[in-house]
């Protein structure tokens, strides 16, 4: 029998050699715990993320935009499912993970605690929020845990449509009437900074980062991903004729990146800790949906049992 220390050495050697870890492989307890935490938070974010957009399904400005938004929100439900399934390969139960979300023990992305005030917000979410999520998820396609990486590949394939439909909405509004353009600008103003916060605290303040990088759960740091996202997004905003609400935003020839202004991390921690504009509303909606769906889940089981009994009797 190998000692724990030897097992850990072997494990790290596999990671270093880019060999994926699969559910039945030996893994350090802390690796398993980190993955469960990260994957379940990711799953919760997909599910809670349906709420701000769901707010506009019944009020979409056309049938075309309504079916598109509906399809997009459906995809997010699917993403939640892929991720809960990936988490379950680590020996946890989806029901317990959902319980942790509902009791507030588990977190979800802080971005979904902001309200969607106008139709332009739906454009801004697809463009910026899905855009930021994509940057993170493209990286996670190469994460060291096999089931998580495979879920990410599937998700990334679906995400492209999300960002493009969002940008299309922005394009229509920005090239529309002055009032529509103003709505688009206002949405950008409100969603820009929270989108940058989606990548998490700066590297020197990020508690889990170093170990996650060593285990290749993450492949890039929060700051690297944030920079990548900004660099990509600036020209998209320029094309729309909209202004990114950051007076410090400026191309840095030497760095070959955009410089940007300070992020209000105080706001980020406030929202994470439950004091964002919609935290209570979001959790309440989730719990309500779960509780009011209980009879459906029970009825389905009862029906399945009845069918089984009939089959056995026959």
């Amino acid at each position, binding site marked *: 029998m190998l000692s724990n220390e030897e097992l850990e050495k072997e494990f790290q050697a596999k990671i270093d050699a880019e060999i994926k870890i*699969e559910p039945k492989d030996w893994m350090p307890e802390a690796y398993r715990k980190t993955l469960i935490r990260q994957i379940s938070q990711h799953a919760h974010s997909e599910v809670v993320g349906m709420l701000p957009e769901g707010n506009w399904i019944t009020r979409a400005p056309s049938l075309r935009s309504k079916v598109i938004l509906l399809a997009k929100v459906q995809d997010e439900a699917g993403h939640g499912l892929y991720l809960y399934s990936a988490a379950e390969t680590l020996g946890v139960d989806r029901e317990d993970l959902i319980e942790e979300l509902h009791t507030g023990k588990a977190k979800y992305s802080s971005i979904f605690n902001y309200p969607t005030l106008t139709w332009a917000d739906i454009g801004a979410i697809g463009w910026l929020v899905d855009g930021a999520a994509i940057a993170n998820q493209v990286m996670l396609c190469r994460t060291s845990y*096999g089931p998580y990486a495979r879920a990410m590949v599937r998700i990334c394939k679906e995400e492209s449509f999300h960002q493009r439909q969002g940008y299309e909405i922005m394009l229509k509004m920005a090239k529309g009437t002055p009032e529509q353009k103003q709505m688009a600008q206002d949405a950008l103003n409100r969603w820009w900074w929270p989108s940058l916060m989606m990548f998490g605290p700066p590297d020197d303040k990020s508690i889990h980062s170093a170990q996650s990088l060593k285990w290749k759960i993450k492949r890039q740091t929060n700051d690297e991903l944030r920079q990548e996202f900004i660099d990509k997004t600036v020209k998209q905003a320029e094309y729309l004729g909209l202004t990114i609400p950051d007076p410090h935003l400026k191309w840095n020839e030497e760095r070959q990146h955009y410089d940007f202004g300070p992020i209000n991390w105080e706001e980020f921690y406030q929202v994470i800790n439950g004091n964002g504009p919609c935290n209570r509303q979001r959790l309440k909606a989730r719990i309500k949906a779960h509780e009011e769906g209980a009879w459906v889940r029970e009825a389905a089981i009862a029906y399945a049992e009845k069918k089984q009994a009939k089959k056995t009797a026959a």
Partner: protein
Amino acid sequence: MNKKDWPLWEIFIRSKNGLNHKHVGSLHAADAQMAIENARDVYCRRNEGVSIWVVLSSQIVASDPDEADALYEPAKNKIYRHPTFYEIPKEVGHM
């Protein structure tokens, strides 16, 4: 089933960590352990796999090909689920 018959097992092989198990075929075996060993002997003689799943064929529930039209119809007319449905100016880069 004749009581002397060995049941049929479906065999799934993961060729390399990071990839899904993939269905490769089936074989008869008296129990799961034997099915794994036989799968190794017939399907993994040339290092084809790093992990084997065996599932009793009788436990597999398959969709009915005759119902395929009805089953997949909902996905057929939703072209807006595809990224190519949206025209994105090339000036803004890949999206």
